């Protein structure tokens, strides 16, 4: 093998490595986030996985644990949000209309661009 061949191989390998890093799953949006929006403002954003946390105000309490998210408590009259159950996939959401709170799971490379319901 010539010295030049080695150099060519090295350049191609380096490029491949760089491309791999640039487009690795982590950077390509594989990480999902739990987002809470209240009155149109984002009030909470944490990774879905590896988190044991919650968001709460005087009217609602959202729990994030082991890759699952649910509305633990709400002071609204219809309790639709509490009965929505758990979510854990990008694109899913829980809404509390009376208190104007929305919880959704976001990921840059989600399988869907929207859901009609």
């Amino acid at each position, binding site marked *: 093998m010539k010295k030049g061949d080695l*150099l060519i191989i090295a*350049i191609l390998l380096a*490029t491949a490595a760089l491309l791999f890093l640039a487009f690795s799953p982590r950077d390509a949006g594989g990480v999902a986030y739990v987002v809470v929006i209240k009155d149109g403002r984002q009030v909470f954003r944490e990774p879905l996985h590896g988190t044991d946390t919650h968001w709460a105000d005087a009217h609602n309490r959202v729990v994030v644990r082991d890759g699952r998210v649910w509305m633990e408590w709400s002071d609204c009259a*219809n309790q639709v949000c509490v009965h929505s159950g758990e979510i854990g996939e990008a694109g899913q959401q829980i809404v509390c209309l009376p208190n*104007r709170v929305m919880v959704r799971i976001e990921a840059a490379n989600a399988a*869907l*661009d929207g859901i009609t319901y």
Partner: protein
Amino acid sequence: MKKHVRKAVAVAAALACAVAAAGCGPQAGEERTTRTRFLLGTVVTLTAYQSDAGETLDRAFERIGQIEDEMSAHKPDSQIGRLNAEGTARLTADVFFVLERALNMAALSGGAFDPTVLPLSRLWRIGGETKQIKVPPADEVEKARALVDYKKVALDGETGTATLEKGMGVDMGGIAKGYAADEAWRIFREDGVKSAVLDLGGNVVAIGTRPDGRPWRIGIRDPRAQPEGAHYAVLALSDEAAVTSGDYQRYFEADGLRYHHIFDTSTGYPARNGVVSATIVSKDSTTADALSTAVFVLGVDKGLALVESVEGTEALVVTEDKKVYATPGIRDRVEMASTEYTLQ
């Protein structure tokens, strides 16, 4: 040797460019502007796949808020609120236009979609902020049903006046979201946004294509899945609106029966013909909104026949036994996403 090195660099650079151009990287998805507001009694999320679309989003939200203020039957000060309270009202051009379209859709569907459904929705109060759990007495249902008739709305195009008969009421809930989506769509188009998804409480508009040039992938909610968000099929859409009516959106259960918010105006009771979800795809969200209600009420056969008679519209209907019926024009753009459902 140097020549070879230059060649290798060129190959590497070409490779990098190809990957970047293919848009498979995060760059394609990260350049976006997205905002959520609570409007029209639901959640509205507008997302433009470009970084500088803030003003477009603001203008669209403002227009949607304006439509809510004009057309909400729950707001006594709205034009529709005044029409219902006083029996007659002068309407601004756009409210008149939407009411006229609603009445046309009512005529087209033989009243399966009917904007004068308010006496029924008021009586049943399904999906309000307080929990309704009672079925109203049959005589009250009949009294309310008798007040529902789109043919009794008088429109005067010269003065822009609408007049109702005594006791009647207009509820634009089955069409205003669709119109608001069309108006937001117009604003995005005027501002030259080439790639965006609008979601007005489940009324979706897929503008242009994804940033990578492929059609948008829009799921249709699985009508029987808990939690919300699971989907039974995926549609490939481009410059199209999709609207779904389902029995799972607002309902209560009594004596083992589900009472949802879409009324059969010929009986006064929630429509019960085996349909649990009806999705309409169209270039026009206002049409899609009204048709989704009409198809839900008409059932599979009459519903699909109606959709096929309207140019540029397609439909997918799900029945209780998890069968999916589709118009021919949409079949090759449907990807089933749940093994529980079978496309007929």
